[in-house]
């Protein structure tokens, strides 16, 4: 079952009331209609980034490896990935980017890494250097993400 094309069969549709429960951002952020996938193997970095994104109004899903990210991408409707590059597992972040470009070409990809890697034609939409300022990441998300659907 492909994760991205049909949200009614592979993405749990939340009841309308549950959307009110999400933290309300104090910024002018418009919540992304589908989750952002954060891929980072260092747990404290991952939880800090995910927490800041949620406080800014985004729906966030977490993966600790490229392998977990693949499992989620195959079965969830995800439109944006924020990923580290060097992570343990059967594939690393660079291979995740290349795989995603081939498998789900409409997914937006932001790489956040202290290392430079060649991507060839499978380049991500943005590359930010670690340590990344959160405001810079937000600005990049606004620039590359599709506009939110009206609610």
């Amino acid at each position: 079952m492909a994760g991205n094309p049909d949200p009614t069969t592979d993405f749990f549709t939340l009841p309308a009331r549950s959307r009110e429960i999400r933290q309300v951002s104090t910024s002018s952020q418009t919540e992304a209609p589908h989750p952002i996938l954060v891929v980072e193997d260092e747990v404290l970095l991952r939880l800090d980034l995910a927490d800041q994104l949620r406080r800014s109004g985004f729906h966030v899903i977490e993966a600790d490896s490229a392998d977990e990210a693949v499992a989620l991408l195959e079965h969830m409707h995800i439109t944006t990935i924020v990923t580290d590059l060097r992570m343990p597992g059967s594939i690393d972040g660079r291979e995740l980017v290349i795989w995603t470009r081939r498998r789900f070409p409409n997914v937006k990809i932001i790489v956040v890494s202290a290392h430079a890697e060649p991507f060839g034609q499978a380049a991500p939409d943005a590359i930010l250097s670690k340590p990344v300022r959160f405001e810079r990441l937000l600005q990049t998300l606004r620039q590359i993400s599709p506009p939110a659907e009206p609610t």
Partner: protein
Amino acid sequence: MVDRVEKNSVRTVLIVEHEVLVRMPIAQYLRECGYRVIEAVDVNEALTVLTDSPLVIDVVFTATDFAGGPDGFALTQWIRTHRPEVRAVMAGTVKRSAKIAGDLCEDGPMLQKPYHASDVENWIRRLMAARDADST
């Protein structure tokens, strides 16, 4: 770094589960129940959160078995010794995970379930069935 959370404002659950297709739906459900949810993939990550993060963890919700490392029993024993104020619950099956999540939700900040815990169990089973079908 993450701000320290007032203990009674939002309650925090640390989920420790190596299977992302189980961890994600449980975490999602508990967030919809009003909890702040931290996710760890194994006991070592959980211990890093418990010892190195400024977050106040109220509940640790852990699987029992983790390949190649300390298991949920070792984690709960560590918690009883070093963090006795933290409530630790263990889940060995998807069904039990969903039930525990449902019980936590009833005790949670929202005082009302956004949807039934059986929906969480069904979601997990559907995700895992799809993954297993893809791999054959």
